[in-house]
């Protein structure tokens, strides 16, 4: 058969010599390589104790933001849902009634806001689309769960703690970057 390239090499079928048949030299060679790795830098990160730093553009779990006065920023405009390529975001809008001015920033707010984490691909387009700076992708990821039910994230899961009443939890949720 004609070779297509010149890279093919004929197999050496010469019988092995005595030294080669002992395999000892090759075993020692291999052991040397293994031994030399003991002095190299370890690439392993011992995960739960030691955490790897995320890249600054990491896109993790969503956070629904509040303003300085602790009011929810989201007005249920639906731009995140329309931008979402995975159709993971759904919401129900409601009108703010008298007495709720301290809870919601605008006249309209999201009474229900849900992200289906099973569908979400963490592309961050919702964050880009939001005109009210209401949704952010944080630097944590969605924890594992045994059932699919646990991945429908509603407002209680997504809302950032109130900066006025739960200042420390708010600071923690905001992360190191902010």
């Amino acid at each position: 058969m004609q070779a297509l390239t010149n890279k093919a090499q004929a197999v050496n079928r010469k019988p092995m010599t005595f030294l080669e048949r002992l395999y000892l030299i090759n075993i020692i060679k291999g052991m040397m390589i293994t031994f030399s790795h003991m002095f190299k830098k370890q690439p392993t990160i011992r995960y739960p104790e030691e955490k790897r730093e995320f890249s600054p553009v990491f896109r993790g779990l969503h956070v629904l933001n509040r303003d300085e006065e602790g009011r929810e920023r989201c007005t249920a405009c639906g731009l995140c849902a329309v931008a979402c390529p995975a159709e993971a975001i759904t919401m129900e809008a409601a009108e703010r009634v008298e007495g709720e001015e301290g809870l919601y920033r605008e006249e309209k707010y999201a009474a229900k806001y849900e992200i289906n984490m099973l569908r979400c691909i963490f592309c961050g387009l919702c964050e880009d689309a939001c005109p009210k700076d209401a949704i952010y992708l944080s630097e944590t990821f969605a924890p594992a769960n045994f059932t699919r039910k646990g991945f429908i994230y509603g407002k209680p899961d997504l809302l950032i703690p109130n900066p006025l009443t739960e200042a420390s939890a708010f600071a923690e949720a905001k992360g190191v970057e902010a």
Partner: protein
Amino acid sequence: MSEQTLFKVTVDGITIEVPAGTTILQAARQIGGEVAPPAMCYYSKLKGSGGKCRTCLVEVSKGSEKDPRPMPKLVASCRTTVMDGMEVKNITSEKVVDARAGVVEFLLLNHPLDCPICDQAGECHLQDLSFDHGKSKTRFEFQKRTFKKHDLGENIQLHMTRCILCYRCVFTADQLTNKRVHGILDRGDHAEIATHIEKSLDNEFIGNVIDVCPVGALTDKTFRFKNRVWFLKPMDAHRDCPTCSGRVTLWNRGDEVYRVTARKDEWGEIEDTPEGNPGWICNTCRFDKKEATDWVIEGPRAISRASVISQGHYEGNVGTTLPTETFKAVNGGRTPHLLMDIHDESEVNQPNIHLGQINGASHGNTFNNKTENA
């Protein structure tokens, strides 16, 4: 042919013959496409409308065959009739593009940027206009005008801050109803749409002011904050209505009717009925018939691909017929027992809450029945 004299008019290099007395805007609309100037106040179905917003300004580079001098200033194409041999420049004229950007800037001076809240968003002419012709920056550094809130009754919501004073709703009330109760009060910066001494608009045809409003100043209270228009499914439907044509567009979520509007053509105006009359619809059709059984559904409404409303809508019968479930057939009659029904978990779009039936906006407690028990 007819004894009507036909005038030759050229808009952006495209020549068309139109009868004498046609406005430049109408001639340009007959050509169609980008050549047609935008219009915020002019409404072909309303007599006397136009000439207020100045968005339809065009340059007349040649007055007519007999008097070929250009017109000294840009003219409002909705109010200027064509002359024989007239040459009009619309998008090909730099002056027009610049003037239109200026007009948009003026219209947006006092217009609040509350599109995320506004129910008109997605079908708003001012959104389209500023997207197509406006600049992305504002030079306005002052307080926008605000108004005392007026209540126009239980069906129509007025947001005076959004109004651009196009007078379309005034003409609608004049020409469709026997007695107009709302109008423009005061002058200049204080001019506002209102009824004199708090009246409610309750004529049977007054709901059409919602459809003619180019912005979100007059919106449907029965649809208030229910959903964004681009998540709804527009369907052509009709019913046998004793007062009006009964030809409408239903805006559905699933089988639920969220909103009823008249059918709108490519210029955002109400479509004509087959008999040739404008297809205004009555308040009963618009506000009270929110059951799917009230209507005979003709099929999905064709929406321009450029519109956000066309997102998620597909060609053909998708959305009108339910897909057939194949799981049982391919699994020997067994039903799936590991699949999750999204309604078990999700609090959005709950099957027991019928938003279309709620008169007025929903509030927090509308949705909370399920969560508080769980």
